[in-house]
């Protein structure tokens, strides 16, 4: 059975990827399972300079999901290259650098720097709901996405994946804009903007007031968007949003994704990535699928 997946020049040995921001730089989870099991790791969202992130509380539990407002706390792209890449390179898994910035120039500078680093792909994060300027702004309009993507594309020497926000009226316009501007793939969904209030303290639970919703609750919205996008662009689609088990992963592949990312579910079950991989193989055997591509085309409508 062939689990491998190609996204432009990016070769994944299997379609299971750790979702950005939920997996740090792999160090913590490496104590819980063998990172060689993963097709790839999308690292914590990187910025040019180190970022402190937002004040706590940064997480709230909601029905079948969570809200987070980390706010891109990260050591900056240079520290990532010096300290984290060497660690990640010990493992046979693709390193995907998740990049966030406040201006087109900054996106380009970072992509230039990362193009010369030992990574396998770049995931352009134009969809972080937890920082004031930039980022989400670009991701919320087709023109913003095509501006950032085409500018970045000029200096990018790595496969480029654009990560889309679900907080838009028409996700297919965003995906098409990324495709037209030269992206090798799109990944979706980032978090849905949400809010939770403590009715006793009468305060929002998150210090940041609003945060990004992830986990099982968002799965139907994510599956719908993956389905819509897969039917409107030719480039590969990486699906995510609430995947907790192999059945969920199969649902995203059937919706048209060629690979999937898992984040929140790992907080509850640190083995989830391995279990999903093994379960997916089982599912493919039971249904006589020989490759991931076959699953991605198997939906009957």
């Amino acid at each position, binding site marked *: 059975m062939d689990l491998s997946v190609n996204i432009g020049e990016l070769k994944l040995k299997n379609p299971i990827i750790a979702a950005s921001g*939920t997996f740090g730089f792999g160090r913590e*989870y490496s104590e819980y399972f063998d990172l060689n099991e993963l097709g790839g790791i999308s690292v914590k969202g990187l910025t040019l300079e180190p970022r402190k992130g937002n004040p706590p509380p940064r997480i709230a539990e909601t029905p079948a999901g969570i809200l987070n407002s980390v706010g891109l706390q990260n050591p900056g792209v240079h520290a990532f290259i010096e300290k984290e890449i060497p660690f990640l390179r010990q493992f046979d898994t693709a390193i995907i650098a998740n990049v966030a910035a406040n201006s087109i120039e900054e996106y380009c500078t970072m992509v230039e720097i990362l193009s010369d680093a030992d990574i396998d792909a770049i995931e352009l994060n134009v969809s972080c709901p937890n920082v004031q300027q930039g980022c989400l702004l670009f991701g919320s309009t087709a023109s913003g996405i095509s501006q950032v993507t085409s500018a970045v594309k000029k200096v990018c020497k790595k496969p480029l994946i654009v990560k889309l926000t679900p907080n838009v009226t028409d996700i297919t316009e965003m995906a098409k804009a990324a495709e037209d501007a030269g992206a090798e793939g799109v990944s979706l969904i980032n978090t849905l903007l949400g809010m939770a209030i403590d009715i006793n303290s009468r305060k929002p639970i998150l210090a940041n007031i609003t945060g990004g919703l992830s986990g099982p609750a968002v799965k139907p919205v994510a599956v719908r968007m993956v389905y819509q996008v897969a039917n409107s662009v030719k480039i590969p689609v990486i699906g995510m949003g609430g995947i907790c088990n192999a059945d969920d992963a199969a649902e995203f592949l059937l919706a048209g994704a060629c690979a999937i990312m898992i984040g929140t579910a790992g907080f509850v079950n640190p083995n989830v990535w391995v279990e999903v991989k093994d379960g997916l193989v089982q599912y493919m055997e039971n249904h006589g699928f020989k490759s991931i591509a076959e699953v991605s085309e198997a939906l009957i409508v």
Partner: protein
Amino acid sequence: MNYNLKIEKTEMLTEQIFFIRLKSEKIAKNAVPGQFVNIKCCDGLDAFLRRPISILRTDPREGTFDIVYMIRGKGTDILSQLKCGDYLDCMGPLGKGFTLPEKGEKVWVVGGGIGIFPLLFLLERSVDVYKASFLGFRAKDSIVLQNEYEKASDQITITTDDGSYGVHGLITKPFLERLEKEKPDRVYTCGPTPMIKSIAEICIERDIFCEVSMEQRMGCGIGACLVCACKIKHNDDYEYQHVCKDGPVFPAEKVIF
């Protein structure tokens, strides 16, 4: 990996506070005072995230450890329905614990509410030292583990907010009064933020070694998701460290409350 641990004993200490003994050679052997376990209260979606609960004490010979928790919401409510023989999914031991005292030192622990629980383990592991416990409770009916703390301490002071038992008022009062007379080598504190904040300030002023155990809402519990931020002095600036991995125990003088 499988994190399901057998429940060897459960006990209702008050209407709101419950005791559970769990079987785990690994945790019993490796846990140090101040560390915690991260608990999946039930399969499924009803309490989706794990809940962090301090390790109350371990019994390496029996290969067991204990936890005590108060019912606060969904998760702890579900926990309270567990019975001896059931299994509970716990990750741990997690986090960085307290710095144990040196032989002959004078140790004071200051706990408030659910903050008293990690301190018992510390007292029991602190040998050949003088141990004084200052424990603050809401009211008489919320006092738990009094015997255990008395056994584990050379001297114990209990306060209640409503004066229904022991000294009336906040635990900081008797703590300060005794500080007038003598000076401990080490102070360890855990509890409501206002309490640990003032204990920390008092110790810093007087330049007494003090460690605080912090609480914060958690996601992964292992340092990967960065949600459990704690504001920590960094050169003449600050940075956000993480309660689950860099803590829950921090040097008092480092924390920005």
